[in-house]
């Protein structure tokens, strides 16, 4: 379902070229729960950005449902992200002026779904992440764990093929982090949607169906 082929990414820092990814080959199938761990600076987030189609590789290719994303226009990439990919961020990245419900609803507005359908999907997901009674709260009225759960609902509301999570527990205490991971794992089972989680939090690894380690821009199977 998702594949990367010899993915490399170089950054120019002053006169120096920093090689963040050095030929990453990865395959993710439906229902997978892949955890990629590794130390800071190992290239985890870079890999995730490339898979999320929000950054372009220096060389190599990302294939989503066998479609090479490098050939897609900026507009088509946006459509691909909204239809097939869900994103969960380390800092939750909710829109501060919108309520929990409206944040989760946002991607559905882009898909131009009917109000009824939007209501049905958002209510169901907020229920699933345990926030049914907090729909009207704004992000600043929610705890970190609650915000991340709203972000999870937002990531899943479009029925994506794959959800990408970048350090989803980094800003949460260990109990809340564990709760969030449990929810993600449950949704992975129930929705049969693939998850790729990059983290350096050892607690997260225990939820993995499959785990890879990233070191110096390369993936190592563990």
């Amino acid at each position: 379902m998702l594949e990367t082929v010899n993915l490399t990414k170089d950054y120019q820092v002053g006169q120096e070229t920093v090689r963040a990814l050095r030929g990453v080959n990865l395959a993710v199938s439906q229902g997978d729960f892949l955890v990629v761990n590794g130390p800071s600076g190992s290239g985890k987030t870079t890999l995730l950005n490339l898979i999320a189609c929000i950054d372009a590789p220096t060389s190599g290719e990302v294939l989503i449902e066998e479609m090479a994303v490098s050939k897609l226009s900026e507009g088509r990439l946006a459509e691909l992200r909204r239809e097939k990919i869900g994103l969960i961020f380390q800092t939750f990245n909710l829109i501060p002026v919108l309520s929990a419900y409206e944040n989760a609803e946002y991607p559905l507005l882009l898909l131009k779904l009917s109000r009824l359908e939007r209501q049905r999907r958002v209510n169901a997901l907020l229920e699933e992440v345990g926030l049914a009674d907090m729909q009207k709260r704004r992000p600043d009225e929610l705890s970190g764990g609650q915000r991340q759960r709203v972000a999870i609902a937002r990531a899943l509301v479009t029925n994506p093929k794959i959800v990408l999570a970048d350090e989803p527990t980094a800003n949460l205490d260990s109990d809340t982090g564990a709760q969030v991971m449990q929810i993600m794992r449950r949704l992975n089972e129930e929705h049969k949607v693939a998850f790729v989680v990059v983290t350096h939090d050892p607690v997260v690894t225990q939820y993995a169906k499959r785990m890879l380690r990233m070191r110096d821009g390369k993936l190592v199977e563990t």
Partner: protein
Amino acid sequence: MLRIALRNVFRNRRRTLLSVVLIALGTASLFVFKGYFDFIHWGMGLEAVAQYGHLQIADPTFWDKSAEGYEYLIDKEKLDRVVSLLKEEPDFKAYTVQLMMTGMIGTEKKSSVFMASGVEPESEIASLKYLLMDEGGKYLQPGEQNTVVLGIGLANQLGIRKEDLGPRDGFPGPPIVVMAATVGGQYNARNLFVIGLLETGQPEVDLRLAVVPLVFAQSILNTQSVENVIVELKNIEATESTKERLERRLQEADLNLQIKTWDDLAIFRKQTMAWFGAVYRFIGAAIFVLVFFSILEVMTMSFFERMREIGTIRAIGTKRSQVFGLFLSEGVLIGVIGGLVGLALGWGVGWLVNESDIRYEPPGYAIEVPLQIRLVWENTLGPFLIALFSTLVSTIYPALRAARIRVVEALRYV
């Protein structure tokens, strides 16, 4: 996107409030200025109609001042024909005739040059009656043939004061002598009695102005002719159409006369309004620039504050064009709200000014006039559109930056 823009506008209260206040102040100022200029325009229009009537008919050489001597005068026979044509006009209401004269005016001790308007005292058209000063005697009365009303400056030159007015020694007022050349070129002199004083508000006019009965002017000039025919219509809107029709009919009747409307004659009004127009355009441009830079600043700040939000919505599938549209929609919404608030504010300020009965002395005037703001719906469009357009233009640059930003950079922004 409009729905999201609406939410952003109403929930980013501080930013929206700041922008709305800036736009509203600009719109309100422009509306008040426009209302003030419009009042002057409107007031000067009424004044012009009162002063000139709706139409004036005279010989072309009278209008272009090319006549030699008094050859521009309209004789009795010609006047009768004009009047019969006038009476057939559907919007005709009344007419009067005038004859201007110049000469010397004096008492036993002092004298001065003067310019008198010979008028029909019974006519209300283009009457100078309203210029009569408080306690300044009375205006010409119907049937009078040897009375005069003087401009206050001219009266001062002749040593005639308010207290000197009123009947004395069996005469209606203080006596003066008028000397003028007849249309044939002979000198002529007559006695007149001053019965009133008037003030135009323009001291240089008051120094020379006098109003005499038409029969007196005709008598001293030794003519039965008049200079022009002043026409009052039933309504001001009929001015142009009546002029066009009447011109055609005068031509058909072989009467070589030319018609001018009150708008043609009120040259000072035209010049004043051209100047006010330029001032209004300047203020409009200044407010446009002010709103432009203020909103640019606010929207640019908003762009930096919302960098990560922009990165997020782009990452979850919002297209560049949609981000651009989002910022632009927010700009338009803020512009519309600010414009409407500004109009309400301007209307309120205008109402307060009108109710306060503020008076001031315009340059070149010796009398106070009321400061009024004309509050009419047609004046709302210009200020509103300027504010909206300015907001829209100032939003384009931040909107473009927001749309073009690289997603990963935006997400990394702290």
